[in-house]
Protein backbone atom coordinates (compact mmCIF):
# COMPACT_ATOMS: atom_id res chain seq x y z
CA UNK A 1 0.00 0.00 0.00
CA UNK A 2 2.80 2.43 0.89
CA UNK A 3 6.10 2.67 -0.97
CA UNK A 4 8.90 1.08 1.00
CA UNK A 5 10.82 4.34 1.56
CA UNK A 6 8.12 5.51 3.94
CA UNK A 7 9.61 3.32 6.67
CA UNK A 8 13.06 4.80 6.20
CA UNK A 9 11.66 8.30 6.36
CA UNK A 10 9.83 7.50 9.58
CA UNK A 11 13.01 6.06 11.03
CA UNK A 12 14.84 9.27 10.12
CA UNK A 13 12.32 11.58 11.78
CA UNK A 14 13.74 11.51 15.36
CA UNK A 15 17.00 12.91 14.02
CA UNK A 16 15.05 15.78 12.50
CA UNK A 17 13.36 16.35 15.84
CA UNK A 18 16.73 16.69 17.50
CA UNK A 19 17.92 18.99 14.72
CA UNK A 20 14.82 21.11 15.03
CA UNK A 21 15.46 21.62 18.73
CA UNK A 22 18.90 23.02 17.97
CA UNK A 23 17.63 25.15 15.10
CA UNK A 24 14.85 26.62 17.23
CA UNK A 25 17.00 27.32 20.25
CA UNK A 26 19.63 29.00 18.04
CA UNK A 27 16.90 31.01 16.35
CA UNK A 28 15.24 32.23 19.54
CA UNK A 29 18.42 33.05 21.41
CA UNK A 30 20.14 34.75 18.50
CA UNK A 31 16.86 36.45 17.57
CA UNK A 32 16.23 38.03 20.95
CA UNK A 33 19.82 38.99 21.77
CA UNK A 34 20.56 40.08 18.21
CA UNK A 35 17.44 42.22 18.10
CA UNK A 36 18.18 44.04 21.34
CA UNK A 37 21.81 44.55 20.41
CA UNK A 38 20.78 45.68 16.93
CA UNK A 39 18.45 48.32 18.36
CA UNK A 40 21.23 49.70 20.53
CA UNK A 41 23.65 49.81 17.59
CA UNK A 42 20.97 51.47 15.45
CA UNK A 43 20.51 54.18 18.07
CA UNK A 44 24.24 54.76 18.03
CA UNK A 45 24.36 54.89 14.27
CA UNK A 46 21.50 57.35 14.01
CA UNK A 47 23.22 59.50 16.67
CA UNK A 48 20.58 59.17 19.37
CA UNK A 49 23.34 57.77 21.55
CA UNK A 50 25.97 60.46 21.31
CA UNK A 51 29.58 59.98 20.23
CA UNK A 52 29.47 56.29 19.34
CA UNK A 53 28.68 56.75 15.66
CA UNK A 54 32.09 55.59 14.38
CA UNK A 55 31.98 52.55 16.62
CA UNK A 56 28.43 51.66 15.56
CA UNK A 57 29.34 52.19 11.92
CA UNK A 58 32.33 49.90 12.23
CA UNK A 59 30.34 47.22 14.02
CA UNK A 60 27.69 47.17 11.32
CA UNK A 61 30.09 47.24 8.40
CA UNK A 62 32.34 44.63 9.97
CA UNK A 63 29.67 42.01 10.40
CA UNK A 64 27.82 42.89 7.21
CA UNK A 65 30.92 42.58 5.06
CA UNK A 66 32.43 39.41 6.43
CA UNK A 67 30.74 36.15 5.46
CA UNK A 68 28.78 34.56 8.26
CA UNK A 69 30.95 31.46 7.83
CA UNK A 70 34.12 33.43 8.53
CA UNK A 71 32.54 34.97 11.63
CA UNK A 72 31.67 31.44 12.69
CA UNK A 73 35.22 30.25 12.02
CA UNK A 74 36.49 33.12 14.13
CA UNK A 75 34.54 31.95 17.16
CA UNK A 76 35.13 28.28 16.43
CA UNK A 77 38.77 28.06 15.37
CA UNK A 78 40.34 31.23 16.73
CA UNK A 79 38.49 31.53 20.04
CA UNK A 80 37.86 27.76 20.21
CA UNK A 81 34.30 27.78 21.46
CA UNK A 82 32.20 24.66 20.97
CA UNK A 83 30.27 24.46 17.71
CA UNK A 84 26.95 25.43 19.25
CA UNK A 85 28.28 28.41 21.20
CA UNK A 86 30.37 29.60 18.26
CA UNK A 87 27.30 29.33 16.04
CA UNK A 88 25.17 31.26 18.51
CA UNK A 89 27.74 34.04 18.87
CA UNK A 90 28.22 34.31 15.12
CA UNK A 91 24.47 34.47 14.54
CA UNK A 92 24.09 37.14 17.21
CA UNK A 93 26.84 39.25 15.63
CA UNK A 94 25.36 38.76 12.18
CA UNK A 95 21.74 39.36 13.20
CA UNK A 96 22.51 42.44 15.27
CA UNK A 97 24.44 44.10 12.42
CA UNK A 98 21.68 43.48 9.88
CA UNK A 99 18.90 44.35 12.33
CA UNK A 100 20.72 47.57 13.18
CA UNK A 101 20.53 48.72 9.56
CA UNK A 102 16.84 47.88 9.35
CA UNK A 103 16.00 49.62 12.62
CA UNK A 104 18.09 52.63 11.67
CA UNK A 105 16.03 53.09 8.52
CA UNK A 106 12.92 53.16 10.70
CA UNK A 107 14.45 55.60 13.17
CA UNK A 108 15.58 57.95 10.44
CA UNK A 109 12.16 57.93 8.81
CA UNK A 110 10.75 59.71 11.85
CA UNK A 111 9.68 63.28 11.14
CA UNK A 112 11.98 65.78 12.78
CA UNK A 113 8.89 67.72 13.86
CA UNK A 114 7.78 64.99 16.24
CA UNK A 115 11.18 64.98 17.90
CA UNK A 116 10.95 68.74 18.23
CA UNK A 117 7.49 68.50 19.77
CA UNK A 118 8.73 65.97 22.31
CA UNK A 119 11.72 68.12 23.21
CA UNK A 120 9.41 71.12 23.68
CA UNK A 121 7.40 69.09 26.15
CA UNK A 122 10.58 68.45 28.09
CA UNK A 123 11.07 64.72 27.51
CA UNK A 124 14.56 63.50 28.38
CA UNK A 125 16.74 61.72 25.84
CA UNK A 126 15.90 58.32 27.28
CA UNK A 127 12.17 59.06 27.46
CA UNK A 128 12.26 60.31 23.90
CA UNK A 129 13.90 57.11 22.72
CA UNK A 130 11.78 54.68 24.73
CA UNK A 131 8.37 56.30 24.25
CA UNK A 132 8.62 57.89 20.84
CA UNK A 133 11.52 56.90 18.67
CA UNK A 134 11.67 53.14 19.19
CA UNK A 135 7.92 52.39 19.23
CA UNK A 136 7.33 54.31 16.03
CA UNK A 137 10.48 53.13 14.31
CA UNK A 138 9.68 49.49 15.06
CA UNK A 139 6.08 49.83 13.91
CA UNK A 140 7.24 51.27 10.63
CA UNK A 141 9.70 48.50 9.87
CA UNK A 142 7.66 45.48 10.93
CA UNK A 143 7.53 43.93 7.43
CA UNK A 144 11.28 44.30 6.94
CA UNK A 145 11.92 43.03 10.43
CA UNK A 146 9.87 39.93 9.63
CA UNK A 147 12.10 39.43 6.62
CA UNK A 148 15.17 39.83 8.81
CA UNK A 149 13.93 37.21 11.25
CA UNK A 150 13.22 34.81 8.40
CA UNK A 151 16.77 35.28 7.16
CA UNK A 152 17.99 34.50 10.65
CA UNK A 153 15.88 31.33 10.75
CA UNK A 154 17.42 30.22 7.46
CA UNK A 155 20.92 31.21 8.46
CA UNK A 156 20.91 29.07 11.58
CA UNK A 157 21.85 26.35 9.09
CA UNK A 158 25.39 27.76 9.09
CA UNK A 159 26.19 25.63 12.14
CA UNK A 160 26.20 22.67 9.74
CA UNK A 161 29.78 23.68 8.91
CA UNK A 162 31.02 23.11 12.43
CA UNK A 163 29.18 19.84 12.81
CA UNK A 164 26.28 20.89 14.99
CA UNK A 165 23.21 18.74 14.52
CA UNK A 166 20.57 21.13 13.20
CA UNK A 167 17.86 20.51 10.61
CA UNK A 168 20.26 20.81 7.66
CA UNK A 169 22.77 18.45 9.23
CA UNK A 170 19.97 16.01 10.02
CA UNK A 171 19.01 16.11 6.35
CA UNK A 172 22.54 15.32 5.26
CA UNK A 173 22.95 12.52 7.79
CA UNK A 174 19.64 10.93 6.96
CA UNK A 175 20.01 11.19 3.21
CA UNK A 176 23.48 9.64 3.38
CA UNK A 177 22.28 6.87 5.64
CA UNK A 178 19.12 5.90 3.78
CA UNK A 179 20.08 7.21 0.33
CA UNK A 180 16.82 9.12 -0.01
CA UNK A 181 17.72 12.68 -1.03
CA UNK A 182 14.46 14.27 -2.11
CA UNK A 183 12.27 12.85 0.59
CA UNK A 184 14.50 14.13 3.37
CA UNK A 185 15.19 17.35 1.51
CA UNK A 186 11.49 18.15 1.42
CA UNK A 187 11.12 17.36 5.09
CA UNK A 188 13.94 19.78 5.91
CA UNK A 189 12.54 22.38 3.50
CA UNK A 190 9.09 21.91 5.00
CA UNK A 191 10.47 22.63 8.46
CA UNK A 192 12.16 25.84 7.32
CA UNK A 193 9.11 27.00 5.36
CA UNK A 194 6.85 26.34 8.34
CA UNK A 195 9.19 28.35 10.52
CA UNK A 196 9.16 31.20 7.99
CA UNK A 197 5.37 31.12 7.72
CA UNK A 198 5.01 31.26 11.50
CA UNK A 199 7.29 34.29 11.54
CA UNK A 200 5.33 35.99 8.74
CA UNK A 201 1.99 35.46 10.43
CA UNK A 202 3.30 36.42 13.86
CA UNK A 203 4.45 39.72 12.40
CA UNK A 204 1.19 40.18 10.50
CA UNK A 205 -0.65 39.75 13.76
CA UNK A 206 1.66 42.23 15.43
CA UNK A 207 1.10 44.63 12.59
CA UNK A 208 -2.64 44.20 12.85
CA UNK A 209 -2.67 45.04 16.53
CA UNK A 210 -0.27 47.94 16.38
CA UNK A 211 -0.80 49.59 13.06
CA UNK A 212 -4.30 49.21 11.68
CA UNK A 213 -5.83 52.29 13.29
CA UNK A 214 -2.69 54.32 13.48
CA UNK A 215 -2.07 54.00 9.74
CA UNK A 216 1.68 54.28 10.12
CA UNK A 217 3.36 53.99 6.77
CA UNK A 218 5.90 51.19 6.47
CA UNK A 219 9.47 52.03 5.61
CA UNK A 220 11.38 49.96 3.11
CA UNK A 221 15.11 50.58 3.47
CA UNK A 222 16.61 51.41 0.13
CA UNK A 223 19.24 48.71 0.25
CA UNK A 224 16.90 45.98 1.28
CA UNK A 225 15.93 44.25 -1.90
CA UNK A 226 13.53 41.44 -2.50
CA UNK A 227 11.07 41.53 0.35
CA UNK A 228 9.25 38.24 0.46
CA UNK A 229 5.67 39.18 -0.27
CA UNK A 230 3.82 36.01 0.58
CA UNK A 231 0.66 35.56 -1.43
Amino acid sequence: MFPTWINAVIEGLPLFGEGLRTTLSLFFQAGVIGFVLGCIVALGKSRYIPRVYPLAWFYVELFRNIPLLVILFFFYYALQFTGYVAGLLALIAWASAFTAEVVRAGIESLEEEQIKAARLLGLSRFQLISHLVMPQALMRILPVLANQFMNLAKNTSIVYFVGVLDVTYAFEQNSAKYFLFFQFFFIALGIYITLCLIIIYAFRLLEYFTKTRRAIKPVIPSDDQALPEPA
Partner: protein
Amino acid sequence: MLKVKHLTKRYDTHVALDDFSAEFPLGCINVIIGPSGCGKTTLFSCISGLEPFEQGVIEYNGNVLIEGNRPVKQDTHVIGYVLQGFSLFAHLTVLDNLTLAPRLVHKLPRKDAEARAREMLEKMHILDKQHDYPNQLSGGQQQRVAIARAIMMNPRVLLLDEPTNALDPQLVYALEKTIKELVADGLTLIVSTHHMGFADRIADYSYFVHRGELLTASEKANLLHNPQYPEIQRFIQNEEERVSHLD
Protein backbone atom coordinates in the same frame (compact mmCIF):
# COMPACT_ATOMS: atom_id res chain seq x y z
CA MET B 1 6.55 91.00 30.50
CA LEU B 2 8.30 88.56 28.19
CA LYS B 3 11.42 90.25 26.90
CA VAL B 4 13.55 89.27 23.96
CA LYS B 5 16.81 91.20 23.99
CA HIS B 6 19.33 91.49 21.16
CA LEU B 7 18.59 88.08 19.75
CA THR B 8 20.91 87.06 16.91
CA LYS B 9 20.61 83.71 15.17
CA ARG B 10 22.60 82.52 12.19
CA TYR B 11 22.33 79.44 10.03
CA ASP B 12 25.84 79.07 8.64
CA THR B 13 26.22 82.43 6.93
CA HIS B 14 22.54 83.29 6.65
CA VAL B 15 21.42 85.67 9.39
CA ALA B 16 17.90 84.63 10.37
CA LEU B 17 17.50 87.05 13.27
CA ASP B 18 19.57 90.18 13.49
CA ASP B 19 19.74 91.84 16.92
CA PHE B 20 16.03 91.28 17.45
CA SER B 21 14.50 92.93 20.50
CA ALA B 22 10.88 93.02 21.57
CA GLU B 23 8.73 93.15 24.70
CA PHE B 24 5.53 91.16 24.89
CA PRO B 25 2.98 92.19 27.56
CA LEU B 26 1.48 89.28 29.50
CA GLY B 27 -2.13 88.16 29.61
CA CYS B 28 -3.00 89.28 26.12
CA ILE B 29 -2.70 88.26 22.49
CA ASN B 30 0.48 89.33 20.72
CA VAL B 31 0.47 88.87 16.97
CA ILE B 32 3.63 88.71 14.93
CA ILE B 33 3.05 89.64 11.31
CA GLY B 34 5.41 89.31 8.40
CA PRO B 35 5.93 87.67 5.06
CA SER B 36 7.01 84.03 5.04
CA GLY B 37 10.74 83.63 5.55
CA CYS B 38 11.01 86.78 7.65
CA GLY B 39 12.21 84.85 10.70
CA LYS B 40 8.98 84.22 12.61
CA THR B 41 9.51 80.49 13.01
CA THR B 42 13.17 80.99 13.94
CA LEU B 43 12.12 83.51 16.58
CA PHE B 44 9.72 80.96 18.09
CA SER B 45 12.36 78.23 18.01
CA CYS B 46 14.75 80.47 19.91
CA ILE B 47 12.21 81.69 22.48
CA SER B 48 11.02 78.14 23.16
CA GLY B 49 14.58 76.90 23.61
CA LEU B 50 14.40 74.53 20.67
CA GLU B 51 17.41 76.08 18.98
CA PRO B 52 20.48 77.70 20.48
CA PHE B 53 21.37 81.18 19.30
CA GLU B 54 24.54 83.20 19.05
CA GLN B 55 23.54 86.16 21.17
CA GLY B 56 20.71 87.49 23.25
CA VAL B 57 18.58 86.96 26.34
CA ILE B 58 15.03 85.75 26.86
CA GLU B 59 13.49 87.08 30.07
CA TYR B 60 10.17 86.33 31.72
CA ASN B 61 9.03 88.67 34.50
CA GLY B 62 12.63 89.65 35.10
CA ASN B 63 13.88 86.03 35.30
CA VAL B 64 16.33 84.97 32.64
CA LEU B 65 14.99 81.92 30.82
CA ILE B 66 17.66 81.50 28.17
CA GLU B 67 20.87 83.39 27.72
CA GLY B 68 23.09 83.35 24.67
CA ASN B 69 24.55 80.01 23.78
CA ARG B 70 23.97 78.49 27.17
CA PRO B 71 22.50 74.99 27.13
CA VAL B 72 18.75 75.21 27.32
CA LYS B 73 17.15 73.90 30.46
CA GLN B 74 13.38 74.05 30.29
CA ASP B 75 12.29 72.45 33.51
CA THR B 76 9.93 75.25 34.39
CA HIS B 77 8.05 75.07 31.08
CA VAL B 78 7.22 78.73 31.05
CA ILE B 79 6.96 78.60 27.27
CA GLY B 80 4.71 76.27 25.31
CA TYR B 81 5.00 76.05 21.57
CA VAL B 82 2.61 74.57 19.03
CA LEU B 83 4.58 73.76 15.90
CA GLN B 84 3.17 74.58 12.52
CA GLY B 85 2.57 70.97 11.48
CA PHE B 86 1.13 70.04 14.93
CA SER B 87 3.42 66.96 14.93
CA LEU B 88 1.22 64.75 17.03
CA PHE B 89 2.76 61.44 18.07
CA ALA B 90 1.42 59.14 15.39
CA HIS B 91 1.57 55.95 17.45
CA LEU B 92 -0.38 57.27 20.43
CA THR B 93 -4.09 58.00 20.92
CA VAL B 94 -5.24 61.57 21.50
CA LEU B 95 -5.44 60.90 25.23
CA ASP B 96 -1.93 59.43 25.34
CA ASN B 97 -0.58 62.32 23.28
CA LEU B 98 -1.79 64.64 26.03
CA THR B 99 -0.70 62.57 29.02
CA LEU B 100 2.72 61.36 27.82
CA ALA B 101 4.77 64.40 28.83
CA PRO B 102 3.00 65.14 32.16
CA ARG B 103 3.49 61.49 33.15
CA LEU B 104 7.13 61.30 32.13
CA VAL B 105 8.33 64.79 32.94
CA HIS B 106 6.10 65.87 35.82
CA LYS B 107 5.72 62.29 37.11
CA LEU B 108 1.97 62.76 37.30
CA PRO B 109 0.10 59.50 38.02
CA ARG B 110 -1.71 58.23 34.97
CA LYS B 111 -5.15 58.68 36.54
CA ASP B 112 -4.58 62.33 37.37
CA ALA B 113 -3.02 63.04 34.00
CA GLU B 114 -5.94 61.45 32.20
CA ALA B 115 -8.50 63.33 34.27
CA ARG B 116 -6.79 66.59 33.42
CA ALA B 117 -6.44 65.64 29.78
CA ARG B 118 -10.17 64.89 29.56
CA GLU B 119 -10.93 68.27 31.09
CA MET B 120 -8.72 69.88 28.49
CA LEU B 121 -10.31 67.97 25.62
CA GLU B 122 -13.75 68.89 26.92
CA LYS B 123 -12.75 72.54 26.79
CA MET B 124 -11.53 72.07 23.22
CA HIS B 125 -14.76 70.24 22.28
CA ILE B 126 -12.98 67.07 21.16
CA LEU B 127 -13.55 64.80 24.12
CA ASP B 128 -15.30 62.30 21.84
CA LYS B 129 -12.02 61.84 19.95
CA GLN B 130 -9.97 60.83 23.00
CA HIS B 131 -9.41 57.25 21.86
CA ASP B 132 -8.74 58.07 18.20
CA TYR B 133 -5.32 58.19 16.60
CA PRO B 134 -3.99 61.41 15.03
CA ASN B 135 -4.43 60.20 11.47
CA GLN B 136 -8.16 59.78 12.10
CA LEU B 137 -8.61 63.47 12.93
CA SER B 138 -9.21 66.43 10.64
CA GLY B 139 -6.67 69.24 10.47
CA GLY B 140 -8.68 71.45 12.81
CA GLN B 141 -9.05 68.67 15.36
CA GLN B 142 -5.33 67.88 15.19
CA GLN B 143 -4.58 71.51 15.89
CA ARG B 144 -6.81 71.52 18.96
CA VAL B 145 -5.10 68.36 20.24
CA ALA B 146 -1.70 69.97 19.69
CA ILE B 147 -2.77 73.08 21.60
CA ALA B 148 -4.22 70.96 24.41
CA ARG B 149 -1.00 68.93 24.55
CA ALA B 150 1.09 72.08 24.96
CA ILE B 151 -1.22 73.43 27.68
CA MET B 152 -1.00 70.18 29.64
CA MET B 153 2.47 71.27 30.73
CA ASN B 154 1.07 74.47 32.32
CA PRO B 155 3.00 77.01 30.28
CA ARG B 156 2.63 80.71 31.07
CA VAL B 157 3.19 81.73 27.46
CA LEU B 158 1.93 79.83 24.42
CA LEU B 159 3.48 80.26 20.98
CA LEU B 160 1.33 79.44 17.96
CA ASP B 161 3.13 79.31 14.64
CA GLU B 162 0.92 80.16 11.66
CA PRO B 163 -2.17 78.55 13.20
CA THR B 164 -4.49 79.58 10.35
CA ASN B 165 -2.49 77.74 7.72
CA ALA B 166 -4.62 75.14 5.99
CA LEU B 167 -7.74 75.99 7.97
CA ASP B 168 -11.16 76.66 6.43
CA PRO B 169 -12.70 80.08 7.18
CA GLN B 170 -15.17 78.59 9.68
CA LEU B 171 -12.33 76.86 11.47
CA VAL B 172 -10.44 80.14 11.67
CA TYR B 173 -13.37 81.61 13.59
CA ALA B 174 -13.41 78.61 15.91
CA LEU B 175 -9.67 79.04 16.46
CA GLU B 176 -10.15 82.71 17.31
CA LYS B 177 -12.72 81.73 19.92
CA THR B 178 -10.34 79.14 21.37
CA ILE B 179 -7.51 81.64 21.53
CA LYS B 180 -9.67 84.20 23.31
CA GLU B 181 -10.76 81.57 25.85
CA LEU B 182 -7.13 80.70 26.54
CA VAL B 183 -6.27 84.33 27.22
CA ALA B 184 -9.30 84.64 29.46
CA ASP B 185 -7.80 81.78 31.49
CA GLY B 186 -4.72 83.91 32.11
CA LEU B 187 -2.39 82.61 29.40
CA THR B 188 -0.20 84.87 27.28
CA LEU B 189 -0.31 84.18 23.56
CA ILE B 190 2.18 84.97 20.87
CA VAL B 191 0.77 84.12 17.47
CA SER B 192 2.56 84.40 14.17
CA THR B 193 0.52 84.86 11.04
CA HIS B 194 0.36 86.42 7.63
CA HIS B 195 -3.45 86.28 7.63
CA MET B 196 -4.45 89.96 7.99
CA GLY B 197 -8.12 89.51 8.82
CA PHE B 198 -7.23 87.03 11.55
CA ALA B 199 -4.58 89.36 12.97
CA ASP B 200 -7.01 92.27 12.90
CA ARG B 201 -9.66 90.38 14.84
CA ILE B 202 -7.54 88.95 17.64
CA ALA B 203 -4.51 91.22 18.17
CA ASP B 204 -4.09 93.17 21.38
CA TYR B 205 -0.62 94.12 20.22
CA SER B 206 1.00 93.51 16.86
CA TYR B 207 4.58 93.39 15.68
CA PHE B 208 5.84 93.51 12.11
CA VAL B 209 8.94 91.48 11.40
CA HIS B 210 10.97 92.01 8.26
CA ARG B 211 14.18 90.16 7.38
CA GLY B 212 14.91 89.10 10.94
CA GLU B 213 14.33 92.53 12.46
CA LEU B 214 11.44 94.11 14.31
CA LEU B 215 10.27 96.87 12.01
CA THR B 216 7.51 98.36 14.15
CA ALA B 217 4.92 97.50 16.78
CA SER B 218 1.50 98.86 17.63
CA GLU B 219 -1.62 98.39 19.71
CA LYS B 220 -4.30 96.23 18.09
CA ALA B 221 -3.44 95.68 14.45
CA ASN B 222 -3.09 99.38 13.84
CA LEU B 223 0.19 98.98 11.97
CA LEU B 224 -1.79 97.42 9.14
CA HIS B 225 -4.37 100.17 8.94
CA ASN B 226 -2.30 103.17 8.02
CA PRO B 227 1.00 101.64 6.97
CA GLN B 228 3.85 104.08 7.03
CA TYR B 229 6.58 101.67 6.00
CA PRO B 230 6.98 100.65 2.36
CA GLU B 231 7.68 97.06 3.55
CA ILE B 232 4.27 96.86 5.19
CA GLN B 233 2.57 98.38 2.18
CA ARG B 234 4.22 95.82 -0.05
CA PHE B 235 3.23 93.00 2.33
CA ILE B 236 -0.41 94.14 2.34
CA GLN B 237 -0.43 94.40 -1.43
CA ASN B 238 1.00 90.86 -1.83
CA GLU B 239 -1.44 89.42 0.68
CA GLU B 240 -4.43 91.04 -1.02
CA GLU B 241 -3.29 89.70 -4.35
CA ARG B 242 -2.80 86.24 -2.89
CA VAL B 243 -6.26 86.23 -1.30
CA SER B 244 -7.92 87.41 -4.51
CA HIS B 245 -6.16 84.60 -6.38
CA LEU B 246 -7.63 82.13 -3.94
CA ASP B 247 -11.14 83.44 -4.69
